């Protein structure tokens, strides 16, 4: 007897998931992915051309780890992979994005059009350009354990817990030189840390001003309730209609901690899912594999893109076959998850409308 199919959730990674050559092999090989990336670059105007060149080139003019490169590229790749999966007939039951990945989820769910997303990504880059040098580190301790280790001096400088990714995977963000100083203190205390590839801090008080600037970028951007549920990393619950219509909700995310584990746990507690990482690398699916539901086999994980430049197309194709086998007929095709709930319009209409307005 075939296994009953599980609803599919798309996971969209954020800052830190970027790497040279990310998803580049798909560009030109996967028609929907290629067309969506090109559409986004066109909507970004001249900056879109520079983004594309830095994405595809061996020697990017601006390093990929810079917010102005990593953020719009991760948004675009996540969104384009989402479009590619839905074009194959996949009907996700929910979307969950980490940091800028949450904006890719919002765009796919029709909260704003791709044309407006391009404006928002430009506004986000401009806002982040006002932030001084800094970064993020991942520490192998629980958030409760880490909080008291962030001293008053570091807090005053804007250092704070920026993400709770797993029970003992807590990200701290802040400006330099305080972040490096804290990293040394943590090492002396026996706390294992890893640098998150980023030239700026995110999700901490040091970027509150940037979040306010980003909010201004939402002026004149129509917002709509999500047509596919988005599991919020602000609350761990589905994004409500009222939240989706609030620019402050989306802009404030830039300075608020990302409660990834709470969102993931909420989803997996509600039911068994197949989680598909729609972005470069396997950072989010690795975290998900440590969840009780996935470890026991009640939930499963598909991670289509290894964090390498070469071999991603072959891995993607293999993952698509695996996905077809896992979800079976259930999540593919029309009306699989309820009449009209997740039809073509839910993930396609807003996008096309956006492209017509924007080009």
């Amino acid at each position, binding site marked *: 007897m075939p296994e009953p199919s599980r609803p599919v959730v798309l996971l969209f990674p954020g800052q830190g998931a970027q790497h040279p050559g990310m998803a580049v092999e798909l560009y030109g090989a996967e028609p929907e992915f290629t067309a969506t990336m090109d559409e986004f670059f066109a909507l970004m105007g001249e900056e879109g051309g520079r983004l594309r060149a830095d994405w595809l080139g061996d020697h990017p003019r601006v390093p990929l780890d810079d917010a102005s490169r990593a953020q719009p590229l991760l948004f675009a790749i996540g969104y384009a992979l989402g479009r590619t999966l839905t074009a194959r007939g996949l009907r996700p039951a929910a979307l969950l994005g980490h940091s800028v990945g949450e904006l890719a989820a919002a765009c796919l769910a029709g909260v704003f059009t791709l044309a407006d997303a391009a404006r928002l990504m430009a506004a986000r880059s401009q806002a982040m350009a006002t932030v001084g040098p800094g970064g993020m580190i991942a520490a192998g301790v629980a958030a409760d354990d880490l909080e008291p280790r962030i001293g008053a001096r570091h807090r005053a400088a804007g250092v704070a817990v920026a993400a709770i990714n797993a029970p*003992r995977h807590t990200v701290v963000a802040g400006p330099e030189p305080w972040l490096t100083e804290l990293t040394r203190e943590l090492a002396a205390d026996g706390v294992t840390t890893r640098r998150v590839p980023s030239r700026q801090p995110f999700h901490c008080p040091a970027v509150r001003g940037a979040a306010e600037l980003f909010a201004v970028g939402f002026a004149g951007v129509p917002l709509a309730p999500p047509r596919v549920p988005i599991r919020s990393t602000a609350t761990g619950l589905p994004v409500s209609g009222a939240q989706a219509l609030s620019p402050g909700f989306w802009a404030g995310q830039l300075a608020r901690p990302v409660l990834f584990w709470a969102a993931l746990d909420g989803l997996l507690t509600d039911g068994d899912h197949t989680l598909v990482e729609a972005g470069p690398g396997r950072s989010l699916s690795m975290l998900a594999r*440590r969840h009780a539901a996935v470890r026991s086999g009640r939930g499963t994980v598909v991670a289509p893109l290894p964090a390498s430049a070469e071999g991603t197309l072959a891995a993607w194709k293999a993952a698509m076959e695996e996905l077809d086998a896992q979800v079976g007929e259930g999540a593919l095709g029309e009306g699989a998850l309820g009449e009209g709930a997740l039809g073509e319009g839910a993930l396609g209409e807003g996008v096309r409308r956006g492209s017509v307005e924007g080009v």
Partner: protein
Amino acid sequence: MREITIDTLVRLLRESAGEDESVQLDGDILDTTFEALGYDSLALFNTVSAIEREYSLEISEEEVGGAKTPADLLNTVNRALAGTS
């Protein structure tokens, strides 16, 4: 000769990732890759740090990087322990 057992390794893996008993980590995990178990570099190095503290030894980053499964790590640690005893 000091030796680390699979039970000890599982306990340290659990503690280092913050997994309680509800998270399954037994059975045939010895030859399951850390990637399949969801142990990223942070979780793995966290586990190794705990082992180094508990057994007062040092394992190089290269050796840790070469351990793809709990069985590999067990061998690596036990080789290091044999060298220190």
